[in-house]
């Protein structure tokens, strides 16, 4: 092993360095200079994000327990970019709520550790690395969920999350051990060639699927989502719904498409059923939500169901559709959560009814909300439409027209609830609307980035073509 081969792990090294530097800064900075940690973290992480977009080689390390190739490398960069926008949105919250307790450095260290875990998980070449990455990504998030320790809902959410996360981890580990028992290895490449299709392996695969399904919040493993999203600080809900979900979807995709591709017949019907269940349940529950965070939680469950449409394809088209969808989904959901976040921080209001008449007082914020929700609903020319269209196309390429039919009916249902906040903000007037306020420069920058992304990424096909070019993972 030499320096060149170590540079294959560049993303992880850099992120670790960022974490270490923050740790040192936390120790060295005096109490009154602690507020500069926020700027320092943003600069360091911004540098990491930029470096993540620079090309990297393909290769494997540590007896192929760590693998990197263009798709995973750029997907890590996409996630880092998503985290960066979330950080921009969280600055104001950190200054107001956490700086007095001197908890800002911990926040950054935890969230970066979680991202590091996701990176390891996606790059994993065997189940050991995969499991370590999974736990490393989950544990810090549990702490962050309970981070507003003065707020009992936040603590409650943390407890709920840790209980369900441990159970799902246990199930996943059991599944892994079953696969190991039959295939005789934990290395993905070895497993791929050693699969014999005994019942034990199928049960093992189902258990692994349950473990990952928990992170993606697929129905029926979604029960934690709404409560945790509602209780957790909004930035953490945001992170859970896009970043950690995105990483888990990526892993599920590579496991199904590459490692367990021989099982396709068996996992197809599981995906088929789960997709319908997730879309329908997510949508139906979202219809009646009053709290915006719960609303977005169920919407993000429903979106996960749509991702499964493309999982069924098991071809390159499916990979492209999923990656592109996740990219757009990060932009749309981060923007929607961002609006909820700034309003909740400013006024403490989180209900849809509180948004009545928002357009008359805060037109720009309302527009951001509308475009983000239209993107989630899949309405052109916003990028979400193209992302959903490609998911359908991936499913249609294997002839699942009935499933697409069910999915598009679900989209129509989802349109109803995505229009509810729009209705509140634009159509209604209120005697006590949310007063006009200026959002801070950091969140404004975040909104501008997401809006540009949503309006440009769809109409301009270059990004999709780029993803297409690196999507051959088979």
């Amino acid at each position, binding site marked *: 092993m030499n320096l060149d081969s170590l540079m294959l792990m560049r993303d992880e090294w850099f992120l670790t360095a960022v974490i270490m530097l923050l740790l040192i800064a936390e120790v060295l900075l005096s109490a009154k200079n602690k507020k500069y940690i926020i700027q320092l973290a943003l600069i360091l992480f911004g540098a990491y994000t930029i470096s993540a977009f620079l090309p990297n080689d393909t290769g494997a390390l540590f007896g192929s327990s760590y693998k990197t190739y263009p798709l995973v490398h750029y997907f890590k960069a996409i996630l880092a970019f998503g985290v960066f926008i979330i950080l921009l949105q969280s600055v104001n919250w950190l200054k107001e709520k956490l700086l007095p307790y001197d908890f800002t450095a911990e926040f950054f260290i935890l969230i970066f550790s979680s991202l590091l875990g996701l990176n390891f998980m996606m790059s994993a070449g065997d189940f050991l690395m995969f499991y370590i990455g999974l736990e490393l990504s989950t544990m810090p998030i549990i702490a962050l969920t309970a981070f507003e320790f003065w707020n009992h809902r936040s603590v409650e959410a943390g407890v709920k999350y840790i209980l369900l996360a441990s159970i799902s981890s246990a199930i996943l580990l059991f599944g892994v051990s079953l696969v190991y028992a039959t295939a005789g290895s934990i290395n993905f490449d070895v497993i791929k060639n050693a699969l014999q299709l005994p019942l034990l392996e199928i049960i093992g695969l189902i258990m692994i699927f349950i473990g990952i399904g928990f992170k993606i919040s697929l129905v029926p493993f979604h029960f934690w989502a709404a409560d945790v999203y509602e209780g957790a600080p909004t930035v953490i809900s945001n992170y859970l719904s896009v970043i950690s979900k995105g990483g888990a979807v990526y892993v599920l995709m590579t496991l199904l498409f590459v490692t367990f591709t021989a099982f396709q017949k068996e996992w197809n019907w599981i995906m088929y059923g789960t997709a319908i269940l997730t879309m329908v349940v997510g949508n139906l529950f979202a219809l009646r939500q009053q709290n915006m965070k719960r609303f977005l939680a169920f919407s993000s469950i429903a979106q996960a169901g749509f991702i499964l449409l493309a999982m069924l394809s098991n071809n390159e088209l499916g990979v492209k559709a999923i990656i592109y969808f996740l990219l757009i989904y990060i932009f749309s959901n981060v923007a929607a959560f961002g609006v909820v976040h700034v309003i909740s921080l400013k006024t403490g209001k989180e209900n849809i009814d509180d948004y009545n008449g928002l357009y008359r007082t805060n037109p720009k914020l309302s527009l951001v909300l509308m475009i983000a929700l239209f993107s989630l609903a899949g*309405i052109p020319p916003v990028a979400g439409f193209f992302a959903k269209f490609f998911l359908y196309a991936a499913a249609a390429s294997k002839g699942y027209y009935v499933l*697409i039919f069910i999915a*598009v*009916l679900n989209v129509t249902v989802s349109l109803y609830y995505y229009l509810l906040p729009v209705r509140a903000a634009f159509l209604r007037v209120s005697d006590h609307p949310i007063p006009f306020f200026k959002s801070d420069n950091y969140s404004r920058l975040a909104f501008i980035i997401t809006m540009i992304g949503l309006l440009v990424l769809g109409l301009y096909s270059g990004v999709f073509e780029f993803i297409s070019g690196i999507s051959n993972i088979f």
Partner: protein
Amino acid sequence: MDILSLFVVVPVVIVLAMVLFTKNLKQARMVALAGMLMQLIMSVNLIVKYLNAREAGDQSIMLFQKNIPWFAEFNAHYHIGVDGVSVLMILLTTLIVIAGIFVSWKIQPLSKEFFISLIVLATGVYGFFISLDLFTMFVFYEIAVIPMYLLIGIWGSGPREYAAMKLTLMLMGASALLLVALLGIYFTSSVGGQAPTFDILELAQREMPYDWQKIFYPLAFIGFGTIGALFPFHTWSPDGHASAPTAVSMLHAGVLMKLGGYGIFRFAMFLMPEGALFWQDFFLILAVTGVTYGALSAIQQTDLKYINAYSSVSHLGLVLFALLMINKTAWNGAMLQSLSHGFITALFFALIGMIYGRTHVRDITKMQGMMRIVPLLSVAYVVAALANLGLPGFSGFVAEMNIFVGGFLNQDLYKQALTVFAVTSIVVTAVYMLRLTGRMIFGPTTKVYTGLPKAFWYEKTAIAILVLFITLIGTLPFWWLQFIEDSVNNFIQPLIK
């Protein structure tokens, strides 16, 4: 920039200009009007260019084509082009939007946002009429539908939230069916190892397997039919029209509902001819039901907007009916009816809006003798009513004549019997239109309404534009038919061979 893309680019520029530079009602409407006048110049220019090209012997099925790869991965192209029908539809759109701007001259509140939404809607419609690629078409179609939600929801009246939501969900649900059909057409088009395509001219060359046509044709037909008020999927339309502000009702009934008939003509039947023949008899029953049901419902209504909305269901039912008859005469009638109904119904809704703006009542039992109070509006209303019931000299007559003659040209008894049913709608239309004008326009004047302001100049302009074109189509039908025949001849080919 080619002349067709400009039809989409100019509205986008108008919208951006309005977003960035305008502050109030006056500026917004001036920008919108200036932009739409530019569109008008371009529309007339397009007609001239089209005529010149045909004169010069250009026989290609679509003129002024432009084909740019968009998502090369999916073989989805930005492919545009026009033939006779789309040229006329573009002109119709431009005129109705201009009339709509004049009608909304004093719109309040949020006037800037109103014009922005209106122009966004128009952008989608223009794009729809020029697309030759199913993907492009679908994108524009949805762009045209969604601003409706805001337009009805914010500036509407009555149960506006309900109506806006119902309309949006039904139209988006329909477009969802359409989406399945599009993907079906796309993936079944890769016969013999060719890459699948969304391009309609290329798809027409590859014959879609019969079994798939039978499955996907009804999805496409219902998808387009819903926006064309196909019975029983028309229920969004009366509520939507009744609640919408005037200009939006005009644009919606006048242009947006035409997307249905146009889509069936251009995409559904052209690409799936055998499916169309297979389902012909079934959908004919729905279309005829819509025609008679719409007319009969209109008799029952007392709200001016509901009367006109049901009348639209009936008259647009005729468009679908004529398309399903599948012969050249009927199809000529269908396209002419689309055009004619666009102007007539826009005139109706404009007048209803103006009358309502003065009396604040839309109930016909509460209005009498409007002729003495607002003479110009009343005369225009009588013109619209007569044109609507098919008086010769106005556009309705030539269109319906073609449709019914086309219907009788079919040899089998089934279709002739259905045509008889459909013809009865003319009588019913006459009943409700004449009763309405008799009660509302003529007769003794109610004291409450004396002294209402006469028509303002911007209202007169809107009326003049619409009346002019109703009579132009009625008196010079052959000039308009040359455009329509040109595309009908091409697009009916797969169905009658």
